[in-house]
């Protein structure tokens, strides 16, 4: 952004955010390299505006509830490994907003985004400025070295590409994150997100069309593609996020274990089983998918699980 753009961004943020939120976006830890960008291209002003939009969705559209936020480390590197689903990767942004909002002091989750998105103008710039990083092993290693909180989907794009009848059945986890966790001694925080699969139930995947357009999958949902791009808007399913106790594999295994494919595979499966258990439990406790009663200004964020409610 230009200097002028940054001034306008702050004016907008002042108008649209509550005092607490504004304080948070002004003060979150940010490693400025001298020109207002951090080493991975994040810009505080862009992050603030992104927060304005997605915090609104977080509160009013998906009414995100969460528990176990104390399991997310307030400093030092960590990997957040949630399940993935719902055609568009909105689950990642809701998780990031949730951590930023409910962790004290707030931390930005540096999300690892499929580098498929890097080839698109505007999307590329928007994601980078908002603090996201494109998927590459070196990027994850560098982020961890910088002590960042990294969010990644071990399922990869396989996760969002699954059909509705397979919802919340985890695809097999990739193993790269375990190698990094062992080599660089990083805790893994298992996370489950319930609600994402219902935001856009994928009834079919038109693989030939996906190949034609060069995208990972081509979804057919109740609203897409016959309603056009509007059909990609997510349904207001209520989100439930759970954070579990960090797994510190590096305490049991030496860094050299990262070179053993058997151990790495076994640990990845362990994380997968943990996340699957969390998912099953959270789904069993869920009373209603959309929870229509929790809409409206009166009850932000709902009830029940002893979550931290959003500061007014």
């Amino acid at each position, binding site marked *: 952004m*230009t*200097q002028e753009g940054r001034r306008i961004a702050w004016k907008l943020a002042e108008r649209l955010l509550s005092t607490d939120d504004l304080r948070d976006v002004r003060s979150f830890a940010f490693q400025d390299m*001298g020109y207002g960008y951090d*080493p991975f*291209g994040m810009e505080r002003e862009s992050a603030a505006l992104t927060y304005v939009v997605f915090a609104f969705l977080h509160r009013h559209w998906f009414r995100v509830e969460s528990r176990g936020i104390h399991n997310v480390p307030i400093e030092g590197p960590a990997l957040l490994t949630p399940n993935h689903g719902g055609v568009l990767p909105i689950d990642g942004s809701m998780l990031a907003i949730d951590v930023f909002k409910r962790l004290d002091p707030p931390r930005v989750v540096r999300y690892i985004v499929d580098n*498929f998105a890097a080839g698109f*103008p505007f999307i590329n710039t928007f994601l980078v400025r908002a603090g996201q990083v*494109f998927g590459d092993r070196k990027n994850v290693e*560098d982020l961890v070295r910088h002590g960042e909180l990294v969010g990644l989907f071990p399922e990869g794009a396989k996760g969002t590409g699954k059909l509705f009848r397979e919802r919340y059945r985890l695809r097999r986890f990739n193993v790269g994150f375990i190698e990094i966790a062992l080599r660089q001694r990083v805790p893994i925080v298992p996370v489950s997100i319930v609600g994402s699969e219902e935001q856009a139930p994928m009834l079919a995947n038109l693989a030939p069309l996906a190949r034609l357009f060069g995208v990972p999958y081509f979804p057919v949902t109740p609203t897409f593609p016959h309603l056009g791009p509007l059909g990609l808007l997510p349904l207001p399913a209520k989100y439930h996020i759970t954070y579990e106790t960090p797994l510190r594999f590096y305490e049991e295994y030496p860094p050299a274990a990262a070179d053993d494919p058997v151990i790495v595979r076994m640990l990845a499966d362990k994380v997968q089983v943990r996340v699957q258990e969390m998912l099953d439990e959270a789904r069993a406790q869920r009373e209603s998918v959309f929870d229509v009663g929790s809409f409206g200004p009166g009850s932000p964020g709902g009830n029940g699980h002893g979550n931290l409610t959003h500061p007014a």
Partner: protein
Amino acid sequence: MATSRTPRETAAAGTTRPRTARGGSGGRGTDGQRGTGGAHRGHPKRNVLITGVSSTVGRHLAMHLAADPRVGFVLGTAPGPRPRFLAPLDPARFLYIPTDILRPRQVRDLFHRPEFTEHGIDTVVHLAFVSHPNLRGRKVHRLNVEGTKGLLDRCMESGRVRKFVFKSSDAVYKLDPTTPVYLDENADLNHDPLADQWIQDRVAAEMICRSRMDSQGMDVVILRFASIVGRNVGGQMNAYFDGRVVFRALGYDPLLNLVHMKDVIEAIRLAIVTDTGSGIFNIAGADTATVSTFAEMNGRRCIALPDPLLEFVNRAMRRVGLTDYYYSVDRDRMRYTCLLDTTRAREILGYQPTRTIEFAEYRGLEG
């Protein structure tokens, strides 16, 4: 001695490859003190040959080294008579010998000149390289690739040269959506057969340098610089920011690193005096920001255009002489971030960028 080596540097140099014990490099008067004695605690001062001394980097390097008591004698070569700006240099510290790298005989003779042996030249800094999109063809290729090879061969043949420093650039890296934000020295190189000639030449010359890295007795060091910004330096980024109005690709605004001439000289100096063994080092500067931010700092209007239009506008502007910038060469650079991972340079060379670019000063100088 100027080079006090930390244990870490010594260890790093040791792990690079097994090295022969290195003694004095002959010193001033070929007193033959070569041997194992006094190999550590820094060797006698390095005596340096600079090719392409008439280039801007060459001129700065020659002037800096000739004034630096930590370096011994400096020999500069370029084709043609001595450039005027080298005249004020102390003749006891600097000598200019006209040499055309394109002529193997002249290069051979250079290594047999009495001045060469007398002053005990033991380090070669190879700067003679054409890297302008407009200069291409057989002759340029011969200079860039065969010139580098010939020079390397002569260095090894002479048996006196202990270190060969090749100045390269980050243009050798391949860029696409899947490349990481920070490229380390092992990142993929641009082997695109359609890449601009000077990029292909650079990659080829680097390959030749790398093939000699295991040779006994001579270390080969490649320095890959980020975009050097400064007056008369040439290079794409200077041409880019020189325009009154700069154009960038719509929807993209990658991070860019600019390195100051002072830091470039310091990095080359460190490569000369530090006992590193053979290796490649990324050298980045202190300034990292986006294209549009640099344009704004530089007082330029930055206009975003979609790709095909940008190509057209750039060509038209070049035609009428408004810019010297080639967008087609930098298409990927204008979209995807290319920053250098300088861990190796920091840990082994001890290089740390110190100079930020004073944009106002830079603007004032260009007129």
